[in-house]
């Protein structure tokens, strides 16, 4: 199982802090998230900041990034301010 945690506006919009999902890639993860909760929008997820085990998925294989049991994925809305 992959643990997915949400931060930023997505967490408020999706009304969920974290969820456990079985998925072998980020692309599959997005699809499964949509199936679990229709609040999730695949389009919005694609434009989120996705961190897989502390590494931005842009620095990995993006949507094709492989996932395995025990991985941690953070999905964050782009943020700024201070």
């Amino acid at each position, binding site marked *: 199982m992959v643990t997915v945690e949400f*931060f*930023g*506006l997505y*967490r*408020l919009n999706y009304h969920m*802090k974290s969820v456990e999902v079985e998925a072998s890639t980020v692309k599959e993860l997005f699809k499964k998230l949509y199936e679990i909760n229709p609040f999730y929008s695949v389009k919005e997820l*694609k*434009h*989120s*900041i*996705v*961190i897989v085990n*502390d590494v*931005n*998925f*842009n620095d990995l294989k*993006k949507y094709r990034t492989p996932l395995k049991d025990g991985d941690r994925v*953070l999905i*964050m*809305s*782009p*943020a*700024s*301010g*201070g």
Partner: protein
Amino acid sequence: MSTSYGAYAGTVLKIDLTSRTVSDYPVSDEDRRLFLGGKILAARIMNDFIKGPMDPYGEENVLVVSSCPLNATGCPSSSRFNVSTVSPLTGLLTSSNCGGSFGCALKRAGYDALVITGKSESLIYLDITRDGVEFKDAEHLRGKKTMDTQRSIGGKSSKLVIGPAGENLVRYACAVSDERAAGRGGVGAVMGSKNLKAIVVTGTKNPAVYNEKALRKVKAKWTKRLKSHPLTGEQLPRLGTAALIASMQQKRLLATKNFTDGRYEGYKSITGEELAEKFLIRNKGCISCPIRCARVVEVNGECVKGPEVEIMGLMGANILNDDLGDIIRWNYEMDELGMDTISASGTIAFAMELKEKGMWDSGLEFGKTDNISEVLEEIAFRSSERGNRLAEGAKRLSDEFGGEDFCIQVKGMELSAYEPRGAVGQGLGYSVANRGGCHLNAGYEVVVEGLGLTINPYTTHGKAEIAVMFQNLMEAVSAGGNCLFTTYAFFPFFLFKRPNSFLSKTVNKALPYLGGPLHVINKYPHLAHIHLTAMLPHTKALEAATGMKITMGDLMRIGARGFNLERMINARMGVSAKDDKLPKRLTEEEQVPGDPRTKVPQPLLKKKFYFARGWDEDGKVKPKTAKYYSLDALDDIGARRSDAEANIGK
């Protein structure tokens, strides 16, 4: 006095607390054109008084409270005003920006700024109206907290008050207007040293603007832009500044355990999301602000201002505390006692490390939170030996007990919650900021180094040029009266809406390598003879409000003029390259052991910065630079008194 420009009141008052006399301070329209208002106009005035090192608590210190041209014009997010003085914390010129109603009221009462000198024999407050200034006894307000002081004075006037911390000369005491603070640098302590408990101002008449119709048009477009931008229209209103905590954690930017690390394992319970879900009652804004980033939370059954990202980091991760309820309460207590939350928190974290290393046992320990409220009271009232020492700030603690290498301050001012080893451009900014270790005066480069954009946080390429550009822009925007968040709308939507797109990734990769073009724009801002109305409507708004011709280049030039003038004043008080330095922990110890990128390469960045600024190797403003910004032959405004009339409308 008068002015030919719109949106200004036309009068600057000089108030001598020693002799209890009031006179006009002859600021000319040429001064307004060159120095705009707020902190930059204040620096121009302070320039007349600071001839060399000065005792911040001496009668000779001056407190300049200045409004800005866009105050009371109804432009969005434009109620910011400024307090400048010689800081008791740094011994240098400090400026502190505040979003309370005081600036607008001051303008409505007919004054662009107050120049307060001398020292009252007894505790007083000033009651200012269009008819003049009354010196009123404030003995009945002694010891009162900031909100209680404002309530006790009563009425619908705007107030700028100090709490017990200011009265007791805590070096980082702030001044408070409504619920907003002029937080940094100890301006509240200077008010306290002058026996000035409060300034009350009653103003009802907005100054006339130059072109009402044009201004109305700009305001409508500007408000629409701010409301539709992903940051200012959605994220800041819903999550506040605290939205950054999770990003800071991911980017190793969250100051943890007195800046020994950039990540905190307990961060999840101190995020903006937790604040929104568990504590937020509603959001709130300063006057005329559509962003409304302030949090309203409940403490002791009362609705009060919630914490910002800085204190959530500094009173959370930086002292190893994961209880957000505690942070909310301490934030409220510090506001009420009238002390800067950033410096207070930084000083407490340093004391905790001193205790851990066996250098000074103050009873403060990382992870131990049951005595923090008690300590805050002791600091504000200087009621114990411990409180008395902590009231002096981290640097003076390190002078007494050692620990200079891990005393997280620059020029005596404690750093904000952004760990600069995760964003070296921010580290550069901290080290060269005129105010000291302030994240905003630094240029807030961290916003492109991970929080917002994601340029390489470790490279030295382009960082000096970006710092200079951001500093100039932020100086000018502050001087105009706007909140700095209005500059976020500068960033195109796609960078935030589509951070994974090819275009966004390309911008992030390319930006550090645009140092050359940025250098040219920084060096010759007058070449930027353009308006960027859609992204930065500030220039159009200033033109419509005042009647001055202000392009983007002019705006950047005003900002650079302010930054350089502050540096020249600080140089007279002894500042040079030796003072532009971070503590060794941040420049010599790797944040991630084994990764040499994770420390701030200070000498190289400083060298690049001085070059980009047009300063010499010792960090002095070169004569050529001073001349370009018309700073080479500033006269003494005060000495213009005899021929003041001749200068009007120049």
